[in-house]
């Protein structure tokens, strides 16, 4: 049995402008000790998936499909049951550490708080444990300080400490490198990797940066317009992409000379008929604008394209 399995997960937001199909028919499997990157551009639905797994979406979202964690469907759980999963079994590292930490509490209190609440450990032992973790993450002595007294990178470490102190089985990182300087990106990734391998957790890395995906994951799922268009081993997918969108995305990277993808990202309220990438696709065929391709599997490589059948 796999650790986490998404089966046909779809998320729709009802807004005054119409219903936004933020994710449609997303299916993927995460094994133990697995590292999976979900990449895609702004608004492709990658963060929505992370929030849907932990049921952290706003009220106007309607979620269908199923999220199976160790044989239990997280979407059918009561609020009480899911709150036991959050943080303890599946934890999330948020994007902006300076905003995700509470500015009026000391770092140490925030890191030890999950222990007090989830496990009911006495305060002194919890603080002791939190201190140990902070020391391991290179934040020796920062526990008595407040978030605004630390740099962005140190807040990032504290944030990772908060998420990993309960030794969750799955660690989800939502754009942990966004807005960081180049040198700090590397540090943050190394830190996440060390925490992950030390606790033996699985990782879901959500990012828009293909470099980050390459250095932090074994498997990758490329999303476009709410759908997974290509999924497989990270190196295979990024170095030898099959789907036209993945190819185009690689071409627009700095080392390939910034060749842009023509056209704009389509609206999620009214996505194109057939294959969602066909209006911007250089290899378009007749069938592409009529019928939606399915995610086809060949030797562990999944591609959603009519040319790859």
């Amino acid at each position, binding site marked *: 049995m796999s650790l986490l399995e998404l089966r046909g997960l779809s998320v729709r937001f009802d807004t005054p402008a119409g219903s936004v199909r933020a994710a449609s028919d997303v299916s993927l499997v995460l094994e133990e000790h697995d590292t999976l990157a979900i990449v895609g*551009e*702004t*608004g492709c639905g990658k963060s929505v998936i992370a929030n849907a797994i932990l049921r952290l979406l706003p009220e106007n979202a309607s979620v269908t499909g199923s999220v199976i964690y160790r044989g239990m469907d997280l979407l059918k759980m009561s609020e009480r049951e899911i709150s036991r999963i959050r943080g303890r079994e599946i934890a999330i590292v948020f994007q902006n550490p300076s905003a995700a930490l509470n500015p009026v509490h000391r770092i140490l209190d925030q890191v030890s708080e999950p222990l007090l609440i989830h496990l009911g450990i006495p305060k002194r032992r919890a603080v002791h444990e939190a201190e140990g973790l902070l020391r391991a993450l290179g934040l020796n002595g920062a526990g008595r300080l407040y978030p605004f007294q630390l740099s962005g990178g140190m807040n990032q470490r504290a944030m990772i400490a908060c998420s990993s102190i309960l030794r969750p089985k799955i660690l989800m990182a939502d754009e942990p490198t966004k807005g960081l*300087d*180049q*040198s700090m*990106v*590397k540090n943050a990734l190394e830190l996440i990797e060390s925490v992950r391998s030390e606790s033996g957790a699985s990782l879901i890395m959500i990012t*828009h*940066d*293909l*470099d980050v995906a*390459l*250095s932090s994951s074994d498997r990758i799922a490329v999303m476009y317009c709410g759908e997974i268009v290509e999924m497989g081993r990270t190196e295979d997918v*990024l*170095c030898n992409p099959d789907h036209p969108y993945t190819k*185009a*995305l690689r*071409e*627009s*990277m*700095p*080392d390939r*000379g*910034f*060749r*842009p*993808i023509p056209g*704009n*990202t389509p609206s999620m309220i009214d996505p194109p008929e057939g294959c969602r990438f066909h209006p911007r696709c250089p290899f378009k065929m007749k069938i592409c604008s009529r019928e939606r391709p399915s995610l086809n599997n060949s030797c562990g490589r999944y591609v959603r394209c009519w040319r790859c059948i």
Partner: protein
Amino acid sequence: MYLRAQNVSKVYQEGLLFRRRRCVLRDVTVEIEEGHTLGLFGPSGSGKTTLARILAGLDHPSSGAVIFNGIDLREMRGHVFTEFRRSVQMVFQDPESSLNPIKTIGRSLREVLDLLRIPGDEQAGIIKEALEVVGLSEEVLCRFPRQLSGGQNQRIALARALLLNPRILILDEPTASLDVSVQAQILNLLKEIQRRRGIGYLYISHHPAVMRFVSNSVCELHNGMVTFRGPVEKWETGAEAGARSTST
């Protein structure tokens, strides 16, 4: 035409009781010429944005001068200052916040034409042309900034600056908050516009690859001091050796 920062320094005073002086820029001299791109490279906190704001006339240097076509910015009055104001434009990092959230795109563009005293019946044509240059259709005119994507907003901000027909354009990390594919679109668009109109760019970035792609010459800042100045071919940065590159 040229825009030059001559021995510019900027000092901030900090603290309530003990006045500490923090030096953001030390004796920086850079010159932007028409038709060329000067890349301004440096890690965050190195004073890049402060220099850009001083060059755009949004901030004043503590010492040194900003010189536009041989005239000191402080000595400009009336007509000459208007000339400077129109010729030197700036595009900001965060496209969403560089447009007023409560004005439609159309209004944001039209008010620039009103400022230039262009009669109402000619405005529609000019706006259509400006949108074509940045690759947008007219349907965006009735939208609000938050209804558009980051890339589209940045194109609007660019179109708005171009309406004034500037000679020098200061670009403060215009693609830092955009996706890679959109970044590629904007960078190519900027090159295309420069080729056609011969505008001089000051391009600020902390990304070496972007720097190499857009600039003719590079100026590298560290802690407010210039550590390298010269053509891009000769430029090599310490950060570059450690920079990640996608192995292929």
